[in-house]
């Protein structure tokens, strides 16, 4: 198997870059951290990578709104390079702030016909770090293969998924593009704190029509070791955290 090269993008205020790169490395990829300025000045080229990860953080302080300034920078300064990358058979994952960036630059949902979505203030109006159960609708995106319920942490203040109208949600739903939903232990829809931010349709992550662009609010890179699980001392936690599959599936896609 030839090496799978992943670019982990950083900008002012990115802060989950190291552990996201580590998760890809643990999954067998080669991860390279690069500042967005290097893409803008063309000293780093997306052409050299099969995957692009936009990690969590507070890019540019989340001033104006979460991810908005980096989204504008990518859209206004790197439009062609990113369009070409997404067109080609490459993978893009945006985690937390990265999801906010993908949504605000229009890469998710990414097709005019499916309407518009955004991520806005949590119903609680505050930042919260908590673990959530997620129902997976696998197969549509290479990042997730099987249907099951997984457990990951969220940590954000602006993660409430909303849509411009009901038709948008229906369209995403009917096309299997809502790949992660907040749920209870049994995979059933449930209110706060199960749905930690008040997301419409309990949406936690969606993918593009191609499935190759994927964004989610929870942090898979924070559940890859046994001892990441908040209850690992109680016994019975899996040897590998539920988050690792996102990264191994991405690597598998290219092998």
């Amino acid at each position, binding site marked *: 198997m030839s090496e799978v090269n992943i670019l982990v993008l*950083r900008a*002012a*205020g*990115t*802060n*989950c870059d*190291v*552990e996201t790169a*580590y*998760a890809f490395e*643990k999954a067998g990829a080669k991860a390279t951290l690069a*500042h967005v*300025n*290097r893409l803008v000045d063309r000293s780093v080229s997306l052409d050299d990578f099969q995957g692009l990860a936009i990690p*969590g*953080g*507070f890019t*540019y*302080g*989340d*001033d*104006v*709104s979460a991810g*908005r*300034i980096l989204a*504008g*920078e990518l859209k*206004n300064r790197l439009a062609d390079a990113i369009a070409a990358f997404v067109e080609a058979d490459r993978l893009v994952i945006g985690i937390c702030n990265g999801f906010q960036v993908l949504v*605000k630059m229009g890469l998710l949902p990414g097709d005019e016909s499916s309407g518009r*979505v*955004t991520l*806005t*203030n949590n*119903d*609680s*109006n*505050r*930042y*919260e*770090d*908590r*673990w959530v159960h997620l129902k997976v609708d696998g197969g549509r995106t290479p990042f997730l293969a099987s249907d099951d319920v997984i457990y990951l*942490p969220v*940590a954000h203040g602006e993660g*409430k998924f*909303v*849509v*411009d109208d009901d038709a948008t949600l229906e369209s995403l739903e009917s096309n299997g593009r809502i790949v992660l939903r907040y749920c209870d232990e049994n995979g059933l829809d449930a209110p706060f704190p199960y749905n930690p931010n*008040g997301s419409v349709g309990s949406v936690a992550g969606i993918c593009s029509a191609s499935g190759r662009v994927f964004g989610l609010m929870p*942090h898979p*890179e*924070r559940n*890859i070791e*046994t*001892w*990441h699980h*908040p*209850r690992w*001392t*109680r016994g019975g936690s899996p040897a590998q955290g539920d988050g690792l599959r996102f990264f191994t599936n991405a690597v598998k896609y290219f092998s």
Partner: protein
Amino acid sequence: MIWRIEVATNPAFTDAAGLAAVEDLADAGLENISAGRFVRVFTIDGPLNAADAERIASDLLADPVSDIFSVNKPVDVALTGSHFTVEVAKRPGVMDPVEASTLKGVSDMGLAADAVATSRKYVFSGAFSHVAFERVAASVLSNEVIEECHFAPVVPSARATISPYKFARVEVDLASAGDDELLALSKDKGLSLNLAEMHAIRDYFAAARRNPTDVELETIAQTWSEHCVHKTFRGIIDYNGEIIDNLLASTVARVTKELNRPWCVSVFKDNSGVIDFDGKNCVCFKVETHNHPSAVEPYGGAETGIGGVIRDPLGTGLGAKPVANTDVFCFAPPDMPAEKVPHGCLPPKRVMKGVVSGVRDYGNRMGIPTVNGAIVFDERFVGNPLVYCGNVGIMPRDKVEKAALPGDLVVVIGGRTGRDGIHGATLSSAELETGSDVVWSGAVQIGNPITEKKMVDIILQARDLGLYTAITDCGAGGLSSAVGEMGAEIGAEVRLDKIPLKYQGLAPWEIWCSEAQERMVVSVPPEKLDDLLALCASENVEATDIGVFTDDKRLRLFFEDHLVADIEMNFLHDGVPRLERKAAWMPPSLVEPVLAPKSDYTDDLFAVLSSPTVASKEWVIRQYDHEVQGGSAVKPLVGVDNDGPSDAAIVAPLRGSNRGIILSCGINPRYSDIDPYHMAANAIDEALRQIIAVGGSLERTAILDNFCWGNTDKPDRLGGLVRAARACYDMAVVYGTPFISGKDSLNNEFQTDSGTVVIPGTLLISAMSVMADVSKAITMDLKTPGNRLYAVGTTKDELGGSELYAVNSLLGANVPIVDPLAAKAIFDALSSAAAAGLVRSCHDVSDGGLAVAIAEMAFAGGLGVDAALDAIPVKGKPLDARKVLFSQSPSRFVVEVESAKTKDFEAALAGVPFAFIGSVTSGDRLTLNYEHEQVIDADIFKLKAAWKAVLAF
């Protein structure tokens, strides 16, 4: 052209910020509010036409789905009925972090703007009066220290222009000043120098046959400040007739010297204490306080508190990567009645919310997990809340040493310099009324975490490339103290006019002493300057060469070729006369209350669990990102529902390695009311037993001291401080845990109309322990029905200063007394048992005693307990049930052991006091028996609900 753009939540969506504002107003007593809306306002100045402004609004500022906007007219927030509007804007000169990001967004769109100001507008409807609204809104929705409220429509206006500073040499006449004049001068200029110190300065300049310049005088005042040189701790103290020459050296630092641990790599000399982590890397830890700024402006004070302490590990050695934050607060109770809050103090709940938001917003944006802390409540913190912020960093072993060399350039990296923090609140009202744009902002420092994050990212790269020879942070005293420290042994020359400013108009001494945030100073060999500047520019970090380190052991400062300061480093650093003070401590005359025995103490358990000091801090903890960097192995919340109170946090700082650090803290100010010695001893015991409780050991455990005290000019306060410091020595030397860093904050007193509110003498002990494998950790939640429960350690008649007494408005006299030899034996035995895999769960017994510890273990595990406490080890005459349940004797634990391992566990604990007390059950009841009576019987879910309800805002 000036454009005013208003952005509001699309009425089809929840306006969470508007709802929160309604809640806050209602909390403050405004009745009959029917709805509230939140509007973000951007005032943009620049060569933009109407189409540009529209595009900026729609493509940058307003979300296309969830927002609505309007340009140059109020946005329609769809409220019916009578409206009440308030707009909160930053006062002139107060830094607005959103400006730079917005300007960047505008520039990325291919447009150009010159300036952006943001403000918050709130619109409410309801049946209340304008008078009531204006009274409540200003205090609830704004902080008048940094913001102003407009109740009339705001007309956008351009920024006031500031005239540049014109150089004028200012000399201060000391030569002819008498003692009264010297003292008046110190007071008027806010120098905080006493007469002996003023004499020393006068004599120094008399010998040089000239008067000092304003820059020289300010530089000396900063360098000699209590904050920088710890004059009290290093001074000479007459304690009840006994002379103590340097309290620090004879207590805290003496422990470290005598223990002489090989793993203590750099202690009490750099910006944080450094210990060996794994042979290749070191970890360092520093805890600071930011009390006064947080009392004035809780949000900004706490933000800059955490921002400041992060720069300590970053400024240690050649720079450590920050990997964990800690925070410990002392507040007045959030429900303290308004009439009891003295004039001039912010309401306690407001202080608490502001401080928590400040730590949240700065720590989370820095990408540093906030993993451990505590909150203690006492009404005496009303005027002086205590805000302790800590930071742990990691760095390669070969980056611990540093030295600036003559010829190296002085380079400042990071944020720009403004009037931030100059002399606290001493700016006169005359100055405030001159209408200048920037006279404000002196007292309060506003943080910009993204400036600091960028700076950290670039400094760690520069460190690894070897681009500088030394680094330190700009903290208290700003550049004055940073350059002064780095050049102390060699000398330095700085061009003050080269230092980049936020705005014009600063006098040379203001530039030099400004406490503007987010700045570091590095010493750079000339041949590496270009590489360093290019690296910084590559990630939009500002770096400026402002001078050179010399070899003449003098500090020389220039402003546009004028020499404005020329002082010998020797005098600056060693010229301060030592402080001589009197101290006395008399034990207070207290009596232990005699309370009638009861047959059932379940109500008392509920009351103690509901006291805010004991109650769940989940509302606070969840607002902090405690998992960023991917190293969180034991989180602050544990148990079957992820909401039990963990004893300590464990973080694995290097990805791919299971080696970790345990962080914990001990604090119990109420014991000071009985005896500060025992207050300090208990704080140390508490921090260390939490390390043991999560599976750690005393081996390679280091501790930090942070004293917050009243006015130590008063002998009784200083006497208490002496006792506390002596306990530090007596305890730590027996536990074998060296102090590696410390700090003190004195003068925490608040004058009211009716007298002085003095905080209880408070020592925070923070502990850091290296753990070989985090996957061996233990948590406090009960695990399995049928497992056996043990009480470890001796229970005594020690309810003095307890939570049980406090909820009954009692103090008592029998303060818990630590026996460090006995404690160490217990800690070592339990630690070995845990390492051998014999411990299933373990909780330290602290506030609220055995009853609270067992209850917390039960509800955290979602399991019942059936136990009898008759066999527990006690000392002295037999204890009644109240004392058995609630006494806060130190060095105790409750331990859960699997039935099959009880023999081995008991063998491992041979020689230390312990007893089998009962079993874990699958039910939902906590049943505790004593002397054949059932003294507690409660539903664990009800106990948990009471414990969780108090601080769930």
